[in-house]
């Protein structure tokens, strides 16, 4: 046993026990650890945001532009959005500041401007990208073609069978989630095949979830037994 003398390891150990005390029952130590985590995370994000983003990306170019304008006068170059000194960077900053109008009852409506811009940008970017990068290629991947059976094209009997299985699973699952018609006849059989695939999918997800949670516990136990107690190498 080689107990750690590092104060930060001890802080980590105390907080680990605070959080794990919840396994016994809810208690003030757990709530202390939880609140501390939320507070520290937010403070860390905020300070990181100010020093690594707001100052170098927005404040510095704007301050430089003011400096240049003061010495050489205002020129078109100072309105070039990619120049190291430019006035334009302040515009998104000011639009972002409109989020704070939420706290002023008469001006609350102005918060819709940055939210609208944000949503518009993301929707415009995401919807076509989702179709192009996800829906269409996945549909293409579901198609059973001659190539999946052809060894000359990287296919084979097994890959062909898997391709058929995937197609069956997709059709069955879609049939199961088709609610516009009563599940009778072929639709019923399709749905019954689909439920088998859905259950296998849930089982796989659950297994992976268990593995993930156990991994996190292992990480903490390695910390306690190696870094703190020094009983494992």
């Amino acid at each position, binding site marked *: 046993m080689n107990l750690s003398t590092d104060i930060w390891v001890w802080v980590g150990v105390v907080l680990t026990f605070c959080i794990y005390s919840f*396994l*016994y029952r809810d208690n003030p130590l757990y709530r202390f650890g939880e609140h501390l985590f939320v507070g520290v*995370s937010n403070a*860390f*994000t905020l300070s*990181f*945001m100010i020093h*690594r*983003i707001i100052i*170098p*990306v927005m404040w510095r170019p704007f301050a430089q532009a003011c400096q240049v304008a003061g010495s050489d006068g205002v020129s078109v170059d100072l309105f070039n959005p*990619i120049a190291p000194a430019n006035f334009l960077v302040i515009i998104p900053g000011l639009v972002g500041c409109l989020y704070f109008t939420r706290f002023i009852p008469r001006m609350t409506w102005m918060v819709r401007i940055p939210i609208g811009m944000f949503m518009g940008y*993301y929707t415009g*970017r*995401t919807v076509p*990208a*989702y179709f*192009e*990068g*996800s829906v269409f*290629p*996945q549909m*293409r*991947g579901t198609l059973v073609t001659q190539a999946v059976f052809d060894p000359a094209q990287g296919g084979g009997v097994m890959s062909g069978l898997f391709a058929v299985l*995937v197609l069956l699973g997709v059709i069955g699952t879609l049939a199961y989630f088709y609610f516009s018609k009563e599940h009778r006849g072929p639709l019923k059989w399709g749905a019954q095949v689909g439920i088998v695939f859905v259950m296998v*999918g849930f089982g*796989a*997800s659950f297994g*992976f*979830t*268990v*593995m*993930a949670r*156990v*991994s*996190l*516990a*292992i*990480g*903490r*136990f*390695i910390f306690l*037994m190696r870094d703190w107690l020094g*009983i*494992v190498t």
Partner: protein
Amino acid sequence: MNWERLIQIDRRIIFLAMGLGIIIPMLFPMEMPVGAQRVTRSLFKTIDEIDGQEQCLMISSDYTPQTEPECHPMSLALMRHAFTRRIPVLLNALYVEGAPLLASGIEDVMEEFNSRATTHEDSIIYGRDVVYLGWQPPPIVPILAMGESIAGIYPDDYYGNRTDSLEVMQRIRNYDEVGIVVAITGLSAPLWYVMFAQTKYGVKVGAGCTAVCAPDFYPYCGTGQISGMMAGMKGAAEYEELVEETFQTGGRRKATEGMVAQSAAHLVIMGFVILGNIAYFASRRQA
């Protein structure tokens, strides 16, 4: 037998059994073979084929302290692989909480290699062999902008150096010089790279993810949109083994260390699931 009592077993007993299931294998460690899956081998092969003179490996992480045990060993294993093959490594963080974790990982692996290096050429030099670009929100912006100019969207690196002044950045401008982006994630980062970077710029994408996310990415491995994947701690252990088998890099293999405990904990859970089911059906029969 009172099956009802078994069904209503106190959850704290289950936690205790799980704890013991993890602690005991750690106290009595043993070797456990970790067979690499096809998707892990595929990722290894894709990275191994990068020409370090022409292209670099990009590691994009969005893991946080909560998912560190699964994801951090992946970053370390990837860096060991790239440094051994003399492939330059560019790293960025898509979420702020993980940014310092990645920095500590870079320092650890650099120290590991530099402690063995005998010449300046053998050493891993920051700026020449590795650059940490830091964090730039929101994720979609750097993912898209790196297609045009990496130094443009990351004017300063994590340590405050001008990115375009670093040696390796003289020849790495955008995704054209990136052999593969491996997104290590507890969320959906590999899909963002597929949707925004791959469709537009054609860059290859790899994934390293927590086990929870893995089922979401398998279909993309099937279509070849994701070139390879490390799934959870097991995936990280597989990659560590592949790197160790091929290059004998040494160094601590954090994921492999946890695999025996992982298996023991799974056995405990399976035991409880089986016991619970037996008790359930037996109690129904009694009723």
